[in-house]
């Protein structure tokens, strides 16, 4: 920490107070954003923090002026938070910021238009980031992390303020412009990030319900960047619920409308969209996998193209940890049935080349031999079981002649394509 004289400290604090009150008076949102972005570690905020730690009694400064004392409570908490943040006392920093945020949101409710919406976004972001840092500090001290969870509750409260129908209608009628409710999607996305990090994704349900069914929201009004983020997270939830057509719609939206320069985000979308598309019988081109460094999917795609069950198993094993972490392992494992279908089709085509008259009869014994070649050991009963499943799921059209141990394929379209629909639908 640099040395700061009392005089200089006084000057810096007063300057900040003037900027803050000025920003509020002139509804200067970008300025307010800058004044609140702790995690940006801007030189001006850091030098303010140093000044506060030297001066120690900023409250007296605030009290001296009516202009400042109007926001006395907000500023006191803010300063306390910044001081703690500067000296690396992150739990204290979070707690003080929580108090600041509560007070700030109360003021925000009273301000007419939504001029301070972006500043509110900054506050929400800082709540989450500070909570994460606080939890790291807690765990490194052998204590139980609980601040991120608290942040989730606080963000829910903020969401509630933005979704408050009384506020919305009242202010909409009076002032018309810039309703606050369009901020709700940003807060929702901060909530998603919080819940995903905590692993409590079930808590997403209530906000999603509010966004998608409450009549005060018009989904089209939300800014595109928030819609992209929203679709990404709700798309991921659909993947977890194995609701593939919905996942496809949402993740595809995110992909198409994401800022093309943000390649890491695009890669994340694809990471979840690819298993979904594969489950719908659609495969990504190699260029796509190359461009976004998604090599873990290459062998999976090859396995599906060829009907190579051994390659699929190998691919799942090779990247097991990665697939498990992202939660797509089960989705990819279920592709096995589609790979079986492709293999059966290959066997059928090969048989047609040498003996077209009898090609539509697949002997279980022949299938077993092909499987053994692919290092899958099954007796005829097990093969029969697999074939029954394939028929049941409409991946194979035909019937099982149990006594003769043969699958008799339909003469027409024995291996129906998925055509963008999930298996068995």
């Amino acid at each position, binding site marked *: 920490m640099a040395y700061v004289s009392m005089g200089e400290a006084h000057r810096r604090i007063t300057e900040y107070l003037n900027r803050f009150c000025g920003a509020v008076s002139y509804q200067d949102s*970008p300025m307010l*954003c800058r004044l609140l972005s702790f995690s940006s570690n801007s030189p001006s905020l850091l030098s303010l923090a140093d000044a506060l730690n030297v001066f120690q009694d900023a409250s007296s400064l605030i009290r001296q002026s009516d202009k400042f004392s109007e926001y006395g409570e907000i500023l006191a908490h803010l300063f306390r938070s910044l001081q703690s943040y500067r000296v690396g006392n992150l739990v204290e920093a979070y707690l003080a910021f929580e108090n600041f945020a509560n007070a700030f949101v109360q003021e925000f409710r009273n301000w007419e238009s939504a001029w301070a919406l*972006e500043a509110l*976004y*900054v506050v929400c*972001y800082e709540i989450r980031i500070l909570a*994460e840092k606080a*939890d*790291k500090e807690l*765990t490194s001290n052998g204590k139980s*992390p609980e601040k*991120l969870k608290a942040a989730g509750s606080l963000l829910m409260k903020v969401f509630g303020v933005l979704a408050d129908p009384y506020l919305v209608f009242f202010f909409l009628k009076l002032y018309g412009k810039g309703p606050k409710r369009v901020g709700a999607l940003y807060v929702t996305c901060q909530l998603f*990030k919080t819940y*995903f*990090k*905590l*692993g409590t994704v079930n808590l997403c349900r209530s906000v999603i319900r509010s966004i998608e069914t409450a009549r005060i929201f018009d989904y089209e009004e939300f800014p*595109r*960047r928030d819609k*992209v*983020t929203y679709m*990404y997270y709700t798309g*991921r939830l659909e993947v977890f619920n194995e609701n593939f057509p919905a996942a496809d719609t949402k993740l595809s939206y995110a*992909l*198409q409308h994401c*800022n*093309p*320069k*943000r390649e890491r*985000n695009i890669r*994340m979308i694809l*990471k*979840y969209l690819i298993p979904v*598309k594969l489950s719908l*019988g*659609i*495969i*990504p*081109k190699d*260029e796509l996998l190359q461009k976004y460094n998604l090599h873990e999917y290459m062998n999976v795609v090859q396995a599906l*193209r*060829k*009907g190579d069950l051994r390659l699929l198993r190998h691919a799942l094993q090779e990247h097991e940890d990665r697939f498990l*972490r*992202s939660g797509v392992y089960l989705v990819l494992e279920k592709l096995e049935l589609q790979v079986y279908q*492709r*293999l059966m089709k*290959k*066997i059928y*085509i*090969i048989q047609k*080349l*040498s003996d077209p008259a009898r090609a539509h009869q697949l002997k279980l*014994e*022949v299938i077993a*031999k*092909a499987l053994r*070649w692919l290092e899958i050991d099954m007796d005829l009963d097990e093969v029969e079981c697999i074939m029954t499943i394939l028929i049941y799921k409409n991946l194979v059209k035909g019937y099982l002649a149990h006594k003769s141990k043969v699958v008799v394929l339909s003469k027409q379209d024995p*291996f129906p394509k998925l055509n*963008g629909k999930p298996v068995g639908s």
Partner: protein
Amino acid sequence: MAAEQKATTEEVKMDLFEDDDEFEEFEINQDWVENEEQVKEVGLQWEDDWDDDDVNDDFSHQLRKELETISAAKK
């Protein structure tokens, strides 16, 4: 052994609140220009008619050889 266990617990605790795939924040003040070309391009990176009748690849050739040994054995 005890040290090992402690290390794993710590690892688990740190891992506790992780999401490998947290979406990066978009800048609040800037919206990006949507390029129609780019939107379309992304859409064209998928194939839905890959499921053809072509058996000229290596895998199919090897499969065919494998199947032929069955019929050969039978004769």
